């Protein structure tokens, strides 16, 4: 008996909440979102959520989309993919959203993919791995650059400097594991030799043993670190502590102002591929991305008094792609919106220029990545 009454209460509560919302704004467009706002991936999900909240508000102030207000329905999966699956179901079945933007990590995204495919719900993921869009899934799109692109971009730069024998150090998160897989697969094709491959935990406090091993591996010309979050800063500190002088590369998962702050002088000279957002002010005046990234940066800074990260930018792109598609489709009909997203051409976002097609549900090419170097405690563009 308990069970019935409990569920009944839950059900009525949900209905009541739903009703009060619809009374406030007549028939809003519902943007659903599942993000990792807590847990190990919180530093990705947190700015993503803030960005979505900020821009939904801004768009609504400017009159909304198709004459309707936007309503953001978001859940925190706590960086647990299984929870993402449950919340995804909730968005589709209970909240009946019009589109889903989110899925902070690849795991969360992939756990929702079967749901959205079955429910025929347009879904724009904010996660990195290639598997999300390869093979192409009819209803699934993504905004961030892939891990494979990061490896390609880094290899391109290494070869320019004549570095072909490298050591890989990846973290054990989904991001790092997928990056490791892609890098190892790509290396022989790109003419690179991996002399060592070590891993570390994203929350590790000391990575000197792995770096010592790399340091003592003969012939290594450069070190490529594929990880995200604070672990990357610890790598930098240990790197300096051990006095390793080889050129150091990171992947895009650490691209934030915070990363330099945490690493201190140890970050000096390292390079990484990142979206233009990080160097918004330093872009050439005629760069097509300049107005977009400076605009986003300013809006975010003004509102939250904290530095932007490229991850928030991914959420911005996701929301804008969705909104643009709805505008072009002139409706929120899911199939038409999906078609419109797939037809996106020349959209300029924080991540780069997006050209979607039936065979490419990300729409970015290598030019979307800028190669950056830390100089005097700040990001600098290199060609």
């Amino acid at each position: 008996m308990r069970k019935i009454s409990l569920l009944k209460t839950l059900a009525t509560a949900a209905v009541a909440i739903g009703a009060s919302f619809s009374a406030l704004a007549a028939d809003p467009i519902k943007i659903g979102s599942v993000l990792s706002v807590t847990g190990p991936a919180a530093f990705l999900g947190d700015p993503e959520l803030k960005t979505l909240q900020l821009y939904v508000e801004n768009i609504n102030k400017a009159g909304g989309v198709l004459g309707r207000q936007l309503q953001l329905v978001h859940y925190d999966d706590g960086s647990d993919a299984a929870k993402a699956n449950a919340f995804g179901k909730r968005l589709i079945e209970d909240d009946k959203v019009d589109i889903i933007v989110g899925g902070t990590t690849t795991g969360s995204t992939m756990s929702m993919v079967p749901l959205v495919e079955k429910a025929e719900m347009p879904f724009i993921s904010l996660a990195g791995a290639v598997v999300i869009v390869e093979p192409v899934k009819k209803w699934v799109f993504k905004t961030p650059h892939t891990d494979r692109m990061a490896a390609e971009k880094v290899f391109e730069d290494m070869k320019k400097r004549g570095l072909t024998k490298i050591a890989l150090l990846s973290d054990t998160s989904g991001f790092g594991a997928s990056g490791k897989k892609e890098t190892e697969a790509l290396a022989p094709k790109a003419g690179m030799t991996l002399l060592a491959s070590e891993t570390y935990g994203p929350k590790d406090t000391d990575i000197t043993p792995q770096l010592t091993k790399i340091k003592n591996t003969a012939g290594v010309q450069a070190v490529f670190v594929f990880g995200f979050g604070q672990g990357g800063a610890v790598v930098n500190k240990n790197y300096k502590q051990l006095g390793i002088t080889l050129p150091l590369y990171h992947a895009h998962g650490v691209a934030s102002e915070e990363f330099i702050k945490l690493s201190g002088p140890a970050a000096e000279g390292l390079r990484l591929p990142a979206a233009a957002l990080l160097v918004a002010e330093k872009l050439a005046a005629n760069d097509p991305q300049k107005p977009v990234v400076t605009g986003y940066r300013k809006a975010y800074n003004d509102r939250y008094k904290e530095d932007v990260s490229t991850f928030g930018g991914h959420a911005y792109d996701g929301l804008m792609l969705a909104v643009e598609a709805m505008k072009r489709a002139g409706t929120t009909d899911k199939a038409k919106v999906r078609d419109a997203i797939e037809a996106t051409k020349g959209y300029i976002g924080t991540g780069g220029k997006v050209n979607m097609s039936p065979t490419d549900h990300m729409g970015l090419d290598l030019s979307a990545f800028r190669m950056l170097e830390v100089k005097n405690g700040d990001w600098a563009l290199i060609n």
Partner: protein
Amino acid sequence: MSQFLQFLFSGITVGATYALAALGFTLIYNASNVINFAQGEFIMLGGMLVFFFLQAGLPMPVAIFLAIAIPAIVGMLIEKFTIEPAREADVVTLIIITIGVSLVIRGVIQVWLGKGTHSYPAFSGNDPILIGGATLLPQSLWVLGITALVVVALWYFFSRTLAGKAILATSCNPLAAQLVGVNTQWVLLVSFALSAALGAIGGVLLTPITLTSYDVGIMLGLKGFVAVVVGGLGSGLGAVVGGLLVGIIEAMAAGYISSAYKDAVPFILILVILFFLPRGIFGAKVTERV
């Protein structure tokens, strides 16, 4: 050789923090038979609070003092409001309570100070010291030195002062201690305050090396628990040896065996040790009375 030395340095530095966490576990366990799963949160509090007070413009020594004093007060509040009312409860129930406490602490810090990762400058620079081809950060010396100091101070406290002996007596037999006039409630409060302060000291010292964020306490606490069990519950010496051992073995495993499986190594170690020594290395053998 220099490689081995490097792994050793790395292991000892990390191990010293595990040892401090383990000592905190031991103090509380001895006074109350509770394994405090919130111990790791004190380490987190130490680092986060120093960062917060520095940001607020306080000088370093004041920031450090507050970052140790506040967790000590939090420790006493925990004892007063969650452990004391549940004195008679089961082991599992108490474990769940301390897990609840750790969730609350972590949650409050997360809402208050955000989810970002933070750090502050090392106490005496970042120029590595070269020893036998291996390098050591000055901050590591701080960690080791203060840990050693804490261990000596604790030893003195427990073997030479009345207050310390009162705590020991309570841990042996609370009723008997009460009969000879020890205020056992006071002992519990002091133990919680002391172990919280120990954890916070660890956090304060370690943050310049390892960085901190609202959720670093989980893993540090867990490793501290491993250290306690390796050394033997209730033994202060065991806690220190266990902590260092876990740190060193972890570093050696990462260096020589597999960096992917290094996190599993402490737990494999635990299973192996418990198979052969069911009460850890220094744990007392107890014959049950029937």
